[in-house]
């Protein structure tokens, strides 16, 4: 069995973000980068499946970006992925989901993976499109927002998180792609000996441009902080009066109460 896990390296979400010079994305200098949280669930689930199947599957972890993404790749290798593909693209932030998916699909098509795990979305761009686009380009079924995953005899049973606390169950025959959501699992910490041993695992590098030169379908026109709104309203009075005032505001200004 061949498994592919697609990961993205994103800035630490506690960073202080500033628009870049062209005001189309954030300024990446001085930011600390980490593996996208949703991709950590993807890596963990893939490694759990490998363990479930007695270590038979070979897990390839893939990331697109400049050299700095190798840190995220090495984390995935330390956690239990077997080999890695680094697709070098210095301007990864300027690539939109269709282009990213096209690059991944161009690589994955030749390998014929049985299962592809991705995060549900990235923490920075948050389009939630790359996973499903890859599946479409590869012509394999996919399902998204997994909070449960089971595999037996070539069939994935996925539990999906839907709106309003509702869960859905989906069965897919492999080859298939799934996107992973918070709550699917608790990602393990990489052990220090495994971090050091992962240096010996193979990382193959491709140039993004050699895999796909699809033009963008969308583009970012501007990136800015939301405009500062006026200061909040401070309500005063007894509890009963406060409740009355809050109800009036909720009725007038929101859709919560009608």
């Amino acid at each position: 069995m061949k498994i592919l896990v697609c990961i993205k390296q994103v800035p630490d979400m506690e960073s202080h973000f500033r628009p870049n010079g062209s005001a189309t994305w954030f300024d990446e200098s001085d930011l600390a980068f980490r593996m996208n949280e949703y991709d950590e669930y993807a890596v963990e689930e893939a490694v759990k499946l490998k363990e479930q199947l007695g270590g038979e599957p070979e897990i390839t972890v893939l990331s697109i970006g400049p050299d700095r993404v190798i840190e995220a790749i090495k984390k995935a290798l330390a956690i239990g992925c077997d080999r890695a593909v680094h697709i070098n693209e210095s301007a990864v932030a300027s690539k939109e989901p269709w282009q990213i998916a096209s690059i991944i699909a161009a690589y994955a098509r030749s390998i014929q993976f049985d299962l592809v795990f991705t995060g549900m979305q990235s923490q920075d761009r948050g389009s939630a499109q790359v996973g499903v686009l890859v599946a479409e380009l590869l012509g394999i079924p996919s399902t998204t927002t997994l909070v449960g995953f089971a595999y037996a005899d070539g069939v994935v049973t996925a539990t999906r998180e839907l709106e309003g606390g509702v869960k859905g169950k989906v069965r897919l025959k492999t080859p298939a792609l799934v996107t992973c959501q918070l709550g699917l699992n608790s990602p393990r910490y990489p052990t220090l000996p495994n971090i050091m041993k992962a240096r010996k695992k193979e990382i193959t590098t491709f140039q993004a441009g050699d895999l796909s030169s699809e033009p963008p379908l969308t583009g970012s026109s501007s990136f800015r902080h939301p405009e500062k709104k006026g200061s909040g309203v401070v309500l005063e009075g007894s509890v009963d009066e406060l409740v009355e005032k809050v109800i009036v505001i909720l009725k007038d200004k929101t859709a919560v109460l009608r």
Partner: protein
Amino acid sequence: MNLDLSEEQKLIQDTARDFARDRLEPVAAELDDGGDRSIMLDNLKLLAELGFMGLNVSHEYGGADAGAVAFSLAITELARACASTAVTVSVNNMVCEVIQSVGSNEQKTCYITKICSGEYAAGSFALTEPGAGSDPSSMVTRAEASGGGFVLNGSKIYITSAPYAGVFVVWAVTDPTAPKGKGISCFLIEAGTPGLIIGKEERKMGQHASATNEVIFQDCRIPESALMGKLNDGFRIAVVELAGGRIGIGSLGLGIGLAAIDRATAYAVERVQFGQKISSFQAIQWMIADANTRLEAARLLLMNAAFRKENGRSFAKEAAMAKMFATEAANDACYQALQMFGGYGYTKDFPIERYARDARITSIYEGTNEIQRLIISREILKNYSA
């Protein structure tokens, strides 16, 4: 010149930071306040399973083989959340390193693996005595040759982790007639050995979760194989190994100092007095600038000492400088952080007073900062002697 960390070092730093945030930070205040120590022991077990007890120890004995720089980074991250856990991890690493450096093959295979795997919650150093603190070569604990082994008598104080240590590195006098420092030997003694008695636990100002005890030897009989290194070479071993420990304690101080000033800075941009955030006052800005600058300088000194150690160069002077400067920067940062917090900082509702108490010992243990200055000046002056 390159000051960037390697990817592996960054991942180890991230793992330490994540673990500290998830597991240590939530319980640090409770443990400080006399909480159940088994919580810390559970965390130590998890840290061992992740490889934190043998950062600079060979894979062969279950270590991470990650080097001295990674060790420094890890201790700093753990100390940002819980200094008691961090000091235990630092001492465990040093016990592993001294065994790796001078222990016999049997000692390495048996004891390093047990500390690295977490089978032993801790290892202890038993060097200091009531009458031998900064002047350890004046120790009087005696190891007399007897029946092919040794019999130990005497007492040690301030022994970190003693109640839950699986093994003790013990220094004792084997030749009382030798010149000072030339008649001391180093031993490795298992907990539970008859005659090795864990004495009273100190009631300390800080680092409460980390036990600090008296250890008494009463006709404690050990086999000849318990000797580590050569007979009467123990004091030299202590001097060499303490240098590595200083990187640990300096890194620990740095972690506490960073935690204190980070918390205080976050507070300063929220707290309003005289109609404005106190971070807009120059007095506060200078505290932020001074504390952060000193901590950054401390970090660079630590990285330099660790880098030199990792690359097999001399590092005693650099480790002493880093330990002295980092622990003073940490105490200073805690003072400034508490000042920024005002009265709130003096209460137990905020962690600043804990940081200040935890930081205070760092300029004392693993060699007082006065001893560090002595080491530094000695290393410099030896190049000037006629």
